[in-house]
């Protein structure tokens, strides 16, 4: 393929600004799918469809005959839209030369627009501003343009105006893609190293920007060929591990998989090579030829760094090995997931897993349960704390129950994030108050338009893990948008609070909290546990304590009886369904000593952020 006829691009947008709809429309107009195809073609996983967000990106190849009469090859790479998946966005960006920056004409620039656009610019991508939803009566194109210019410093005077819903403006957009986005024949600024120009005859270097596990074909790796070419039957080598594989199939998605004999310089597609093990196709790795290997791997990838940690335990201890296999499988599809074995007195054998954020954690849990049929208990999420001990040593701890005793701790540091919050002016006070209660440090304030404000804050990550985003949304009637990026470790006065049931410490319920908040949080958790732990045959005492000092206590009165209701012919089905449901609930409980504790108890910390 002539590289000058290839355009590799992605779409970046704030959530709900119409990215998926625009992708559908582009697919439809270029003939890749017909109108009756299911909506939001790129969101392929059931889960994605249910949650209405894109979790895994997919690359789709389209063929487009432009007004210059030439046939172009478009590779549209879909990117995730949620704040947790910033890393995945960065991987897909690196496979592109350009990005369509979609802004909703009725909403204007939002926090994720800023975050994603900045990242695309850092990666050296050509940005094509697109203003969407112009068919809506309250669309305000002028304001959207003004915000793009003032908040992002991007010239919006030639922004393409479209309605992804009606298709208006999309043909013009396709022409703009041809004209504005550069072909892959030149190295991008700052992404791949300077030097020789990419060429079909250079040693192969292809970037793995995504992969998924297919039960029949093994690992399917999505690649962008940067140099050389990859052929069916070729022996390839992964540059990070040195392992070699025989390529058994090559192709692209249109959106159905289409076989090919080779992918050449500048092209995007997939290959399979009998890869079955984790790490065989590490995302971010460079694929080269085993016979004629490249000397230097590609650069420009940022390694995913888990920010949120929690314990994952099988409800039934026999499923430990199954859980390990399932997490390993999941990791193939999810390069950002980390795990290591841990044990808990209360929960037995399990894993401490690292995630990009809470949504990522929730999706992983749901996939483990849904796709692998596991029943899991999650402990409350924690961040990674750095503990400086009195003996001069330092330790990183992401599991609160592993905290050393207070007398051994000199001081503690916790991760902080730089938060960008975009909000209508009338809510500035509300948002500042919320940030203050979450130990936020004010940075600066900007006015991209007369009525909208961007607030910059430094916040402890642990404080936004709880319900910060929900609170932000509810207190601003949904108008605030929020994005964050990890900044640094900051020193904080933190203590560990233990939770005890009938005097026995339940390690999986321990949590770390700022000293000033310990009493409030301890009381709230004891109360929450009283609500979620069902009454037992015996009285249950719940206590929260710092060291030996009890700071909160609650009691669950014993359960003395079931109702001895009548049960005749017409009552049997309903009664059975009720008891079956109870049985299902019981299966998900964990026995701690003689006490049955439901799964949700271990997430109590989440529920009591106030």
């Amino acid at each position: 393929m002539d590289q000058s006829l290839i355009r590799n691009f992605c779409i970046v947008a704030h959530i709900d600004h119409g990215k998926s709809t625009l992708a559908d429309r582009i697919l439809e107009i270029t003939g890749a799918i017909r109108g009756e195809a299911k909506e939001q073609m790129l969101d392929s996983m059931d889960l994605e469809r249910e949650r209405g967000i894109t979790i895994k990106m997919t690359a789709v190849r389209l063929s487009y005959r432009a007004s210059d009469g030439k046939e172009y090859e478009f590779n549209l790479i879909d990117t995730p839209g949620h704040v947790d998946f910033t890393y995945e966005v960065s991987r897909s960006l690196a496979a592109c030369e350009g990005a369509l920056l979609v802004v909703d004409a009725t909403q204007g620039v939002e926090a994720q627009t800023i975050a994603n656009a900045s990242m695309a610019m850092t990666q050296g991508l050509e940005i094509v501003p697109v203003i969407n939803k112009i068919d809506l009566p309250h669309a305000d194109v002028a304001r959207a343009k003004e915000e793009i210019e003032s908040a992002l410093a991007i010239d919006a005077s030639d922004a393409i105006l479209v309605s992804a819903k009606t298709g208006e403006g999309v043909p013009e957009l396709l022409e703009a893609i041809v004209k504005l986005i550069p072909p892959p024949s030149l190295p991008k600024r700052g992404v791949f190293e300077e030097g020789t120009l990419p060429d079909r005859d250079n040693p192969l270097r292809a970037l793995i920007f995504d992969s998924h596990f297919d039960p029949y074909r093994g690992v399917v790796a999505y690649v962008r060929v940067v140099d050389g070419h990859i052929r069916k039957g070729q022996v390839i080598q992964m540059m990070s591990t040195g392992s070699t594989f025989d390529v058994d199939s090559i192709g692209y998605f249109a959106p159905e998989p289409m076989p090919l004999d080779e992918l050449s310089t500048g092209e995007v597609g997939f290959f399979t090579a009998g890869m079955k093990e984790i790490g065989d196709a590490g995302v971010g790795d460079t694929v080269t030829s085993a016979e004629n290997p490249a000397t230097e791997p590609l650069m420009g990838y940022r390694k995913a760094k888990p920010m949120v940690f929690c314990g994952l335990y099988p409800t039934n201890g026999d499923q430990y090995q199954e859980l390990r296999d399932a997490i390993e499988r999941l990791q193939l599809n999810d390069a950002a997931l980390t795990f290591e074995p841990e044990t808990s007195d209360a929960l037995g054998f399990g894993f401490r897993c690292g995630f990009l954020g809470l949504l990522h954690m929730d999706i992983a849990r749901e996939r483990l349960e849904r796709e692998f049929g596991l029943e899991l208990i999650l402990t409350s999420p924690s961040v990674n704390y750095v503990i400086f001990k009195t003996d001069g040593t330092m330790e990183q701890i992401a599991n609160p129950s592993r905290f050393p005793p207070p007398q051994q701790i000199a001081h503690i540091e916790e991760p902080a994030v730089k938060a960008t919050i975009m909000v209508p002016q009338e809510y500035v006070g509300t948002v500042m108050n919320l940030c203050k209660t979450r130990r936020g440090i004010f940075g600066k304030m900007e006015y991209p338009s007369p009525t909208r404000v961007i607030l910059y804050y430094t916040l402890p990550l642990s404080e936004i893990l709880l319900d910060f985003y929900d609170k932000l949304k509810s207190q601003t009637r949904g108008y605030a948008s929020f994005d964050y990026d990890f900044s640094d470790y900051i020193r904080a006065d933190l203590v560990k609070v233990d939770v005890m049931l009938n005097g026995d410490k339940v390690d999986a319920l321990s949590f770390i909290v700022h000293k000033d908040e310990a009493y409030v949080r301890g009381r709230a958790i004891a109360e929450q546990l009283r609500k979620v732990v069902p009454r037992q045959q015996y009285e249950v005492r719940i206590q929260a304590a710092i060291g030996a000092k009890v700071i909160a206590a609650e009691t669950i009165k014993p359960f003395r009886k079931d109702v001895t209701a009548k049960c005749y012919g017409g009552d049997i089905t309903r009664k059975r369904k009720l008891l079956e449901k109870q049985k299902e609930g019981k299966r998900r409980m964990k026995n701690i000593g003689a006490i049955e504790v439901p799964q949700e108890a271990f997430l109590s910390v989440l529920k009591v952020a106030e």
Partner: protein
Amino acid sequence: MDPVAVYVHTPFCPSKCGYCDFNSYAMEGEIIKRTVHAMLAEIDRTPHFGRPAKTIFFGGGTPTFLESQDLARLLEAVMRAHPPTPGCEITSEANPGTVDAEKFASMREAGFNRISIGAQSFFDEDLIRLGRVHRSGEIERAVANASNAGFDNINVDLMFALPGQSKKAWCENLQRAIALGTEHLSLYCLTIEENTPFYKEFLKGLLDLPSDFGQVEMYEQACEAAEEAGFNQYEISNFAKPGKECVHNLCYWNCEEYVAYGPGAVERVGNRRWTHVKHPRLYCERVEANEDLACESETLDSKTLRFERIMLGLRLNEGVDIQVAKPDAQGLQQAIERGWITTEGDRMKLTALGKHYCNQAVVLVA
């Protein structure tokens, strides 16, 4: 053909009680006649025609809210479709406020041989609170009338844990019920069902119900008093003089088949359990148009049947056969450790303590 239990549902009541979530309607006039006609038609064209009746049970609603002739015609139709086996138990529920000596006499004549009287309480304030149409004095009169009409198998229903009820009051209720000298007692704990006026009051905190502990004591009082008076407890809420257990209800608890007629009635034959459309008007329309009467239907697979066998069998004092019910071994062990279940030979059954945790015991072993 195997004899089968037959249930007939009459959905009408003089008024709806605050705690009741049965399929019952306070309706009057033409609809009652129309419904009786429809029920007669349904019975006449039953696919189970000719299958003998092991037992017949008229429940409601309030069967005795129907006129004597209607009750007689319905029973006649049932007996035509299902010839009663010798000694067949033929029960009707009766509300003391809706039945007099004459009606009992005609019911006896029609072939009913067992009466179940919904007494609920001997205190007028309870009856008013519950929304019952009868008053305390009518209970004794109803039992005497039934007895005079020749009924020698009579049940009395009582409820405990009523709003504001004291242990003393419950004790007095028990004594007065026992003094009636009936053959059978059903002693139920008031259950707050969703979609009832009581449920709304309960949510608002307006129902002054006895504590759990109080309820446990009331139940124990009931078991002791009944036993002293010569009743055997044979089910978690049911007590009978020797040989006077309710054969019809035992069919339910033993997971047997039952044929059913009338709006909202539930039938189980083979592996299918289904519910008749509930509203009398809809029921009539469907019968008149000769259309399918089912509004809900389920197929009972072996897993479901096993669950039900345990759930129902544990209600019985004789318990359930372990070989047949196949309880979860680990759960059974736990239930035994908790003192909820004992085993005797091939049978497992609830202990006195276990009767208070009946649901949880089922959840453990099923």
